[in-house]
């Protein structure tokens, strides 16, 4: 049967965000030699414009939702949700980078081009319906992120972070690829819904062992990408070493995209062997929460603390995955959005106080921030309360929906342990508030520069988002619940 591989106009439209971002990224690289010295801020402005344009592209793709390129891509509510999320993260990441790049006197052209490519890869990942496409998207996103992690090439910690991230990341990708290969061997396809159909076929019963192995291998690869225990060891070092805006970006966008494919692969392709992988996820969730929270208790470096906290939050989202239900998927989507907002906001404050060369990123450097810059301190307080999970913030509803889904799936003990974990977590988030409000201002907060417009926006946007999700969660959750059904 002749197959027509030429893309239709709908196909192109469904692929619009990736096209826009790739073109914009290329354009930035072309413009780089011309404007790098004269107008360093231009590249930031352009990439924000590209992200916004890509959001329109996403909306346009959503208006013609459906599969594209012979089922390699699928534009559904789930993909659209995550596309919007990673694009939004991209915008905030750019906003929080202006001041940082200026302070470090770093080149801005390549930085923003890499950022655009990374987000393009993530957009591709979340819309992929085929293991090969997932892999390509993941690699586009990862390679750009590896370089970003070591962007300040004269900084030793940057280099260490990038190398560590790259070596461990490629190793993990190997696991993922091996899993894909095994699946292809058993089922003869790499398309997610066809894998599912093939596994549902009783004729394939004997090969289930290999399928389980494949699922386990892919679990290792994806577990690394979402920094879930026991594959989390890279995260603290990398987050601490990488430039702060890149850490903020890494902790949110690639993670959200990785969770999206995690959900899609395990709930679509591996639905049939769910009883086999559920215990794995269960254990990984509990380990991530516990290791993340308890390790964060003793950290004095803010970036490292936020890294451990991001491991713990990955644990909460894994709880939602373990629930294996539509509500669980919706809860994970909601949580990723809420988490991205509060984490970006908290990182923006870290970028603000870190100073040239990131010399002041310790917890004690926040001392007296409440007195010297009450507005900044207030915003960080809101983000921290959201990370703790106090009501009226997005973080609370995120936790609430996740644990609701977990209880509905009879994961009562995981819920109880998870909630107790979140009480432990309160301690280290509270410590920051203690230092900010209850200690006398130190050298850092006395000499703090005023908030630049870019950073202010990078805090205010997440602040509005956090409150929006905390007071009116219905809008986002409703969309997530409608889209969660597509993943099965």
């Amino acid at each position, binding site marked *: 049967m002749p197959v027509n591989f030429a893309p239709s106009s709908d196909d192109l439209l469904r692929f619009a965000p990736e096209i826009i971002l790739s073109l914009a990224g290329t354009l930035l690289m072309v413009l780089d030699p011309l404007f790098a010295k004269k107008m360093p801020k231009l590249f930031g402005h352009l990439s924000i414009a590209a992200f916004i344009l890509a959001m329109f592209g996403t909306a346009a793709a959503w208006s013609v939702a459906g599969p594209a390129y012979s089922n390699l891509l699928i534009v559904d509510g789930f993909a659209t949700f995550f596309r919007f999320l990673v694009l939004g993260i991209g915008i905030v990441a750019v906003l929080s980078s202006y001041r940082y790049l200026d302070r470090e006197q770093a080149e801005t052209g390549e930085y923003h081009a890499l950022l655009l490519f990374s987000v393009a890869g993530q957009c591709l990942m979340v819309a992929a319906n085929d293991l090969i496409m997932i892999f390509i998207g993941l690699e586009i996103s990862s390679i750009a992120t590896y370089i970003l992690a070591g962007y300040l090439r004269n900084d030793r910690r940057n280099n260490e972070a990038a190398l560590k991230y790259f070596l461990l990341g490629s190793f993990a990708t190997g696991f993922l690829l091996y899993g894909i290969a095994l699946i292809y061997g058993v089922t003869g396809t790499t398309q997610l819904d066809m894998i599912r159909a093939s596994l549902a076929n009783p004729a394939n019963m004997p090969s289930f062992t290999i399928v389980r192995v494949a699922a386990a291998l892919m679990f290792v690869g994806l577990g690394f990408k979402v920094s879930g225990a026991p594959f989390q060891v890279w995260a603290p070092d990398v987050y601490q070493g990488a430039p702060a805006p890149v850490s903020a970006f890494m902790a949110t966008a690639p993670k959200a995209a990785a969770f999206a494919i995690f959900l899609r692969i395990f709930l679509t392709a591996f639905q049939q062997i769910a009883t086999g992988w559920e215990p794995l996820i269960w254990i990984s969730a509990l380990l991530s929460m516990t290791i993340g929270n308890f390790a964060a208790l003793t950290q004095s470096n803010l970036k490292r603390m936020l890294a451990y906290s991001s491991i713990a939050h990955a644990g909460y989202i894994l709880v939602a995955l373990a629930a294996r239900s539509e509500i669980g998927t919706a809860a994970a989507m909601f949580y990723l959005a809420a988490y991205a907002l509060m984490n970006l906001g908290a990182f923006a404050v870290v970028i603000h106080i870190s100073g040239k060369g990131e010399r002041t990123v310790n917890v004690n450097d926040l001392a007296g921030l*409440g*007195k010297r810059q009450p507005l900044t301190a207030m915003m960080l307080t809101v983000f921290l*309360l959201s990370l*703790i999970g*106090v*009501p*009226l913030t997005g973080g*609370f509803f995120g936790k*609430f929906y996740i*644990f*609701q889904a977990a*209880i*509905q799936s009879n994961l*009562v003990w995981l*819920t*109880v342990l998870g*909630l*107790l974990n*979140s*009480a432990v977590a*309160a*301690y280290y988030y*509270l*410590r920051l*508030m*203690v230092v900010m*409000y*209850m200690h006398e201002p130190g050298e850092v907060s006395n000499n703090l520069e005023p908030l630049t417009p870019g950073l202010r926006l990078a805090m205010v946007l997440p602040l509005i988002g956090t409150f929006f999700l905390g007071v*009116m*969660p*219905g809008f986002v*959750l*409703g969309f997530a*619940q409608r889209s969660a059904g597509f993943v099965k």
Partner: protein
Amino acid sequence: MNLLELLILIPSLGFILALLIPRSQDQAVRLFTLTVSLITFVLSLGLATGYQSGQAGQQFVSDRIWITNPEIHWHVGIDGISLWLIILSTFLTPIAILISWKYVQDRVKEFFAFLLLLEVGLIGVFAAWDLFLFYVFWEVVLVPMYFLIGIWGHDRRIYAAVKFFLYTMAGSVLMLAAIIFLYNRAGTFDYAVILNGIGSGRIMFTHGEETLLFLAFFIAFAIKVPLFPLHTWLPDAHVEAPSAGSLMLASVMLKMGTYGLVRFCLPMFPTAARENAPWIIVLAIIGIVYGALVAMVQPNMKKLVAYSSVSHLGFVVLGIFSFTQMGLDGAVYQMLNHGISTGALFILVGFMYERRHSLAISDYGGVATVAPWLSTVFLVTTLASIGLPMLNNFVGEFLILQGSAQANFTWTVFAALGVILSACYMLWMYQRVFFGEVGEGVAGHLPDLNFREWACIVPLVIMMVWMGIFTQTFLPAVSETNAKVLEQSRMNQPLRVALPGPSIARIAGGAAHAR
């Protein structure tokens, strides 16, 4: 928008507006927050006048959908118990603002704004009829109190604030798990619907489930009460908090725990509540005696009052788990009494601290000769606190003891020890502080009450006498609601569908007669 919603809205708006006042305008912030809290108080009196006794169920109800999926309602309403607790909150907030007038000089705006936010949370907790909404307000209360202790407290304020937050948080996450479990079983957060379902047998739990759910709620409330041995955060929090913080903490926030026990634990999990009552009562009695004994040896006045709270709250728990009409009435009445008299003690101790900058009993002596009016007011409050007839605590303690005697006389014997001991520690402290030689640093440093301080304390003294003599102002509404709680708590599983047993009217009538 009805009156009750207005009561939540006004301080919320006040909180936001107060934060917008420029930093230099300290006096404006004080006046503004005082005005807001006074308006709230005056309006809250409308709840009392508008409350129709004889009507079962909540009043001033407002029920609208907040979040559609899962369906979470903005469902508020009051009954006889929450009515008085809300008025207690609105009554004490202006007083808390007044006593901090001079004391708080640092970050004035935030302090007074937080007091209003605290008021919002407290009114919300007592008014919420949706489990989810209840949890939201429960947590909202936590944040301002954390900052009140942590920023404006004394030396070890950070330790106390963090301990306070973590204790409460640990308890409340368990409650959240239980609430979610209930939701998945019942399909709703609406408390009235859940109660109805439990009463009609539509919502059933296995024995194990009911016990675990009960414990999850109970631990969250017991930490807040605080019940022995979960009380250790309380002395720290009280000693380190500024006076206004201690006042709100002791007078209203501890009542969130006991209120939760009466409102949720008894009606929702009747079987488990009755089965677990024996050991809970043992803990309550230990708390009564232990709190009193520890209070006796305290060298620090604030700590003494804090431990006396542990003892007093033990009485309340005893009354609740006696499962008698009188015990429950006494418990609820004692919640209000404790709010008034212990609140007054904290205020007075705060006045003395502002003068002498010490909380140690040994730094005082002979205050009665220097500041006679202060001493007189302190004496009245002390007498109220130890339960002298004609003053408020007597009524509550008497009812609780009588109720517990109906259930089990042995309990009463031990609990009554607490009454005796409270006389010992309070009077002994009074003697050491106010009589004897005029201590060093007391003469000349302790002026008598000024106008603002009179304005703070007189309303409380009036309430002590009023609640001691005119109990009928408060008790009918309380009894009615308690009778209903008691009836719900009588519905153990086999009897759940058909209800023999006495009707509400008979219980209420009987109780009124016995009184």
